[in-house]
């Protein structure tokens, strides 16, 4: 009898798991003993770190997008349809058109930036965390003639280093275009330092001071007046801006909320080591969809995929799921248009940025291309 693994979500986490499973269990999928089903609501697979480059006119969406069906192993059954309901009691996923029973489920439904999370933000602010947002922001950045460019950050959000990369790239960009002296760059952060990771915060402050980037800590955006162009902090203070770039709070996918599986933000309670959904033996959660205390980033999804695939293979072979995720993440940090650094850390080891270099920048650009090998489950 055919056993079925369903993966819901065709982003980096879901695609990687589907491909690695099909490749690792090729005999089983070719003999029909195992079916790997990937349910995704779009045919396009987008490499999200590309949005940052799009915002500075260093690339277009086509460069960072591929057809999902061409990335997948030929034996992965790709169902392009939105998952509407996940029933973990009946072990069933219902899409707009069909219903699928499963033996094992992998939830990789990601997160989305919610510009409605703060009153006035959708009308008064920009974000580069979506393709449409990055394209709109590119227009603003390229036509900006000077004034205050304000960056605000809400929680939770994905890729916590991207806002730093953004401000450093903006600094470089306006130096290169010759109007840096007319642009006030202001970076804000919700807590008492400029990044939640202390070593990163210390390093970033030195960079800010060297480059003349203003910063303010304890900044929690509460509302925006799009007419007057004023951002309001939770402490009541007013912050005028000419261009507001917000990293809004992220939420879990609609299907998670509709299925009653997540917390109040739509993130699924997940065992931080086994990556199983709390209270469920046959359900793994991966990537942004989890409530884990780690960055929501492609990198964490990548390391989590290693664990989930190994555990699924063990379980299919009747062995216990012994592989454990240790919270590992690895992040490149662009420190301008021509240099980069990186950090790596896990649940127990804090990160320490290395000195930025041109070589690391080229490594990051190379990874932008190599990513497709990761998605295919090769790298």
């Amino acid at each position, binding site marked *: 009898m055919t056993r079925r693994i369903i993966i819901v979500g065709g982003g980096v986490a879901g695609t990687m798991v589907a491909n690695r499973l099909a490749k690792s269990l090729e005999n089983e999928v070719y003999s029909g003993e195992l079916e790997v089903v990937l349910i995704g609501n779009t045919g396009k697979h987008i490499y999200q770190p590309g949005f940052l480059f799009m915002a500075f006119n260093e690339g277009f969406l086509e460069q960072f997008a591929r057809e999902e069906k061409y990335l997948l192993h030929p034996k992965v059954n790709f169902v392009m349809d939105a998952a509407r309901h996940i029933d973990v009691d009946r072990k069933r996923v219902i899409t707009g058109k069909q219903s699928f029973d499963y033996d094992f489920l992998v939830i990789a439904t990601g997160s989305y930036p919610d510009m409605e999370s703060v009153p006035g933000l959708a009308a008064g602010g920009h974000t580069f965390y979506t393709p449409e947002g990055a394209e709109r922001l590119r227009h603003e950045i390229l036509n900006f003639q000077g004034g205050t460019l304000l960056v605000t950050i*809400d*929680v*939770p*959000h994905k890729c*916590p280093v991207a806002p730093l990369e953004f401000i450093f790239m903006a600094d470089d960009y306006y130096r290169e275009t010759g109007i840096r002296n007319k642009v006030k760059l202001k970076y804000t952060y*919700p*807590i*008492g*330092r400029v990044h*939640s*990771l*202390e070593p990163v915060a210390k390093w970033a402050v030195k960079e800010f001071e060297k480059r003349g980037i203003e910063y303010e800590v*304890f900044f*929690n955006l509460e509302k925006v007046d799009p007419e007057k162009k004023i951002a309001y902090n*939770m*402490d*009541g203070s007013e912050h005028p801006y000419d261009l507001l770039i917000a990293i809004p*709070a992220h939420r879990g996918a609609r299907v998670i909320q509709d299925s009653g599986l997540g917390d*109040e*933000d739509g993130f699924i309670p997940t065992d*931080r080591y086994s990556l199983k959904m709390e209270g469920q033996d046959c359900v793994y959660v991966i990537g942004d969809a989890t409530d884990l*205390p*780690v*960055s929501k980033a492609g990198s964490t999804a990548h390391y989590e995929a290693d664990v989930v695939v190994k555990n699924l293979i063990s379980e299919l072979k009747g062995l216990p799921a012994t592989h454990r995720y240790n*919270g590992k*993440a690895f992040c490149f940090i662009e420190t301008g248009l021509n240099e980069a650094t990186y950090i790596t*850390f896990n*649940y*127990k080891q*804090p*990160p320490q940025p290395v000195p930025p270099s041109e070589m690391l920048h080229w490594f990051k650009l190379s990874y932008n291309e190599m990513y497709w090998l990761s998605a295919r489950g090769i790298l």
Partner: protein
Amino acid sequence: MSEVNITKTIDARGSYCPGPLMELVKAIKRGQVGDVYELLSSDNGSAKDVPEWVNKMGHELVYCREEGDFWRIAVKKTK
């Protein structure tokens, strides 16, 4: 401490990124005035960071105490 009615306990032990305080900020932003959020953090920095944030934002620190290898900190949303 028994009279404190905790709305929700946030277990952020073992967290570096996005960090225990960030978890608390998230809860308070979504909460109602009068809610009390208790944060468990194994990061020593939280004992300093959380009271600073609470003070700056005008909320109320209910308690902040060390228990073995972690901190137990409660904050009331006041506005």
